[in-house]
């Protein structure tokens, strides 16, 4: 049983809706992706399978359109619009990311569709929302993250270098999470009231409220955080937290040891690595840390011994890192010393890590055209009962046009006529 089984979603294919649509589709919703005859633009986004470009080979497309069925409708043609209305009349949800005004111009905006289907829940994902003064600004992932706040907080201690945006289309991911939340909230309301509604999602607003301290420090105390390499943007400059390990990879250290038993475990870890007082004379301070009743950060710079103990802990971590590959450092610090640190993995390294493999994160997806399955990223959450699964690979252009229209009650001769007119497109 899936949480959204039987929930019919019409998604007007767009780079801004793909992720929210996938969240619903992988949880069992019946998502029908509507593309124009030329296909969605993201079918041409690299990377490509085998590095060979082509509308069915984009790995971006493959990832974001899983579990959906795909149809082709020409919405610039009234006959195509009429087909869409007939599909919407049977749907629970419409998800779209068109620039503000386009759907109204086609007679397909929320009021038009709600007239056909009052219980419809419709979400519109746009860069700046559908009504604000900046609604018509042109935007990409980079410009949304720059205007919306995340970029200000990310980058390096050296402010002659530009601030940085993180990769992966995160503006759409943030907006997609909020779109999914709003749709599910509206579906729960509809379950109790029978009432549908429209949801306006702004990517710019979403970025603005996804910046943690940068926003609420300004809101509450009118101070401005400053970006710092690999750690929280803060008003004061804090100590570095990234350490270079023996294999050239980095680790991120967390809260340094503070409780006496943590110092005892740190000493034990160093000894297990063959680091004794000969190699690391400051070990004596770590032993003092293990013997003390309490250790307070606030005493750094006040109490000489406490200062030396915390400094020795930092030095010990640097020394261990210089001797160990990043993953060994991570495992040793966590398992032996109980100190929270994280190995800085690239995505593929994380994907292959034993923890995620053991949790069953890798999802095998059949690609009949390739005659094999492909390993995909799996579920973001593990439900005990609601099934998360990739029901099928991303749709080929027009793959389900006839199947979906047929199931919606469109007569065979009508489908033939529409195919001949180029209003719809069949599977190739």
């Amino acid at each position: 049983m899936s949480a959204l089984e039987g929930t019919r979603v019409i998604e007007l294919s767009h780079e801004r809706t793909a992720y929210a649509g996938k969240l619903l589709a992988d949880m069992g919703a019946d998502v029908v992706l509507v593309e124009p005859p030329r296909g969605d633009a993201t079918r041409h986004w690299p990377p490509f399978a085998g590095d060979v470009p082509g509308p069915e080979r984009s790995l971006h497309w493959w990832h974001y359109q899983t579990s959906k069925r795909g149809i082709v409708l020409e919405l610039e043609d009234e006959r195509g619009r009429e087909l869409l209305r007939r599909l919407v009349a049977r749907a629970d949800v419409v998800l779209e990311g068109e620039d503000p005004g386009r759907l109204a111009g086609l007679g397909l905006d929320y009021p038009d569709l709600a007239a056909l289907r009052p219980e419809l829940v419709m979400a519109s994902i746009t860069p700046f929302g559908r009504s604000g003064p900046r609604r018509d600004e042109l935007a990409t992932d980079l410009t949304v993250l720059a205007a919306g706040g995340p970029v200000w907080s990310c980058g390096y201690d050296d402010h002659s270098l530009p601030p940085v945006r993180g990769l992966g289309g995160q503006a759409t991911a943030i907006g997609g999470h909020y779109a999914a939340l709003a749709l599910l909230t509206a579906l729960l309301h509809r379950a109790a009231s029978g009432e549908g509604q429209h949801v306006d999602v702004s990517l710019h607003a979403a970025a603005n409220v996804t910046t943690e301290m940068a926003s609420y420090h300004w809101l509450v105390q009118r101070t401005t955080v400053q970006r710092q390499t690999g750690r929280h943007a803060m008003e004061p400059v804090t100590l570095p937290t990234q350490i270079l390990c023996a294999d050239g990879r980095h680790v991120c250290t967390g809260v340094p040891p503070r409780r006496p038993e943590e110092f005892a475990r740190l000493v034990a870890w160093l000894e297990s690595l063959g680091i004794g007082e000969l190699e690391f004379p400051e070990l004596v301070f770590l032993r003092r840390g293990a013997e003390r009743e309490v250790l307070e950060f606030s005493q750094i710079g006040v109490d000489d011994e406490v200062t030396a103990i915390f400094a020795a802990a930092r030095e010990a971590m640097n020394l261990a890192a210089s001797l160990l590959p990043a993953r060994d450092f991570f495992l040793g610090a966590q398992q032996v010393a109980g100190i929270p640190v994280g190995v800085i993995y690239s995505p593929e390294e994380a994907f292959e890590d034993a923890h995620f493999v053991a949790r069953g994160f890798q999802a095998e997806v059949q690609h009949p055209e390739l005659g094999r399955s492909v390993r995909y990223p799996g579920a973001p959450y593990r439900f005990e009962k609601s099934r998360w699964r990739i029901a099928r690979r991303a749709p080929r252009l027009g793959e389900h046009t006839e199947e979906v229209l047929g199931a919606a009650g469109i007569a065979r001769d009508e489908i033939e006529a529409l195919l001949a007119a180029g209003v719809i497109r069949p599977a190739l």
Partner: protein
Amino acid sequence: MTKALARFRICDFTGQLAGAGATKWLAAFGAEVIRIEDPATQGRWDILRSMPPFVDERRGVDFGGGFNNHNVEKDGLTLNLRTQRAREILAEIVKRSDVVAENFASGVLERWGFGYERLRALRPDIIYVSNCGFGHVGPYASFKTWGPIVQAVCGLTFTSGLPDREPAGWGYSYMDHTGGMLMAIAILLALLHRERTGEGQWVDLACTEAGLTLHGPAILDWTVNGRPMRRPGSPHSNRSESPPMAPHGIYPARGVDEWVAIACRSDAEFAALGRVVAAPWAQEARFASLAGRLAAQDDLDALVAAWTRAREKGAVAASLQAAGIPAAAVARPQERIDGDPNTAAWGLWPRVEHSKMGSVRVDGLPVHLSKTDWELRRGGPCVGEHTELVLGRLLGLSREEVAKLRAEGVV
């Protein structure tokens, strides 16, 4: 306005942002969210309770600005679960709740005697959602994390940076936000599942695993093409390979630490940029096609930067927007909060009334629902602020009975 989630009650053990952010969504749509906190430690499990920012010189567990931001519209109840009576009261609350939400390290709730089996025994259709760094299952289930460590392990730190330097990472706990959003999505999905089947269930969320889902195409590039993202010159995260664009970057503007983002999506947009720049380099043949611009991207970036450096960031963005090119100033917090007509028109920074802090602005929500929109008015609860109210409302305890529990150290 009608509250979309008013019929649901959440027994909420969450804290920080990764957990509290999830239940903030539910509370904003009218769910009854009851935060359960430990009176002995004054709720300090959530360290944000007493952390900056502060509205004035007052300090303490009721003055943390971050806590207030993440806990608006929630009720605060204290229960000292070291006492038998408090555990009995918690059992009664669980029986009356739809959801139990927590983001402790794995095993903590179990040790208090409220693991999933117990919760289910108390209420067969309970929805239990746990959220921690590595999840409750798997070899690293006992590892400790916080936001930056989650981001390190899941690849997000690595994929943010300039080439041939150490990672820049995310300058905040992006995965606390994201983990919280996915946790809230999981709660809503489980509620929908229950409405259809009558079944409750346990959902386990590992923030590291959730973060891994944010790199789909990069992971497929690895599993399909065998191409790792860790390779010379990669990542260069201000550039765009998918889709390929050039120029595409964050360029210096006039002033100290001022920047502007520019993204040219097509040859036509580059030609338009050339007309705005009106410099000979924009007409060079090597820049006419995307392939040429990608091949000469270092040179192109230097030329664009030389043009933007002399100009004010807002003026650069406005002139390019007018020419049909996506561009935006890199906004400082003050600029996007107090100087952006769009966030103001959205109502993105609502004022809530906090019992001790007074009127404080907080993060609003980036959605508007036409019939059941969110509403944020009440500030986060002070420690135990609603103990009497909640115990009276839910369990019918009188003022005197609550006073007795207070004297006994139960609440």
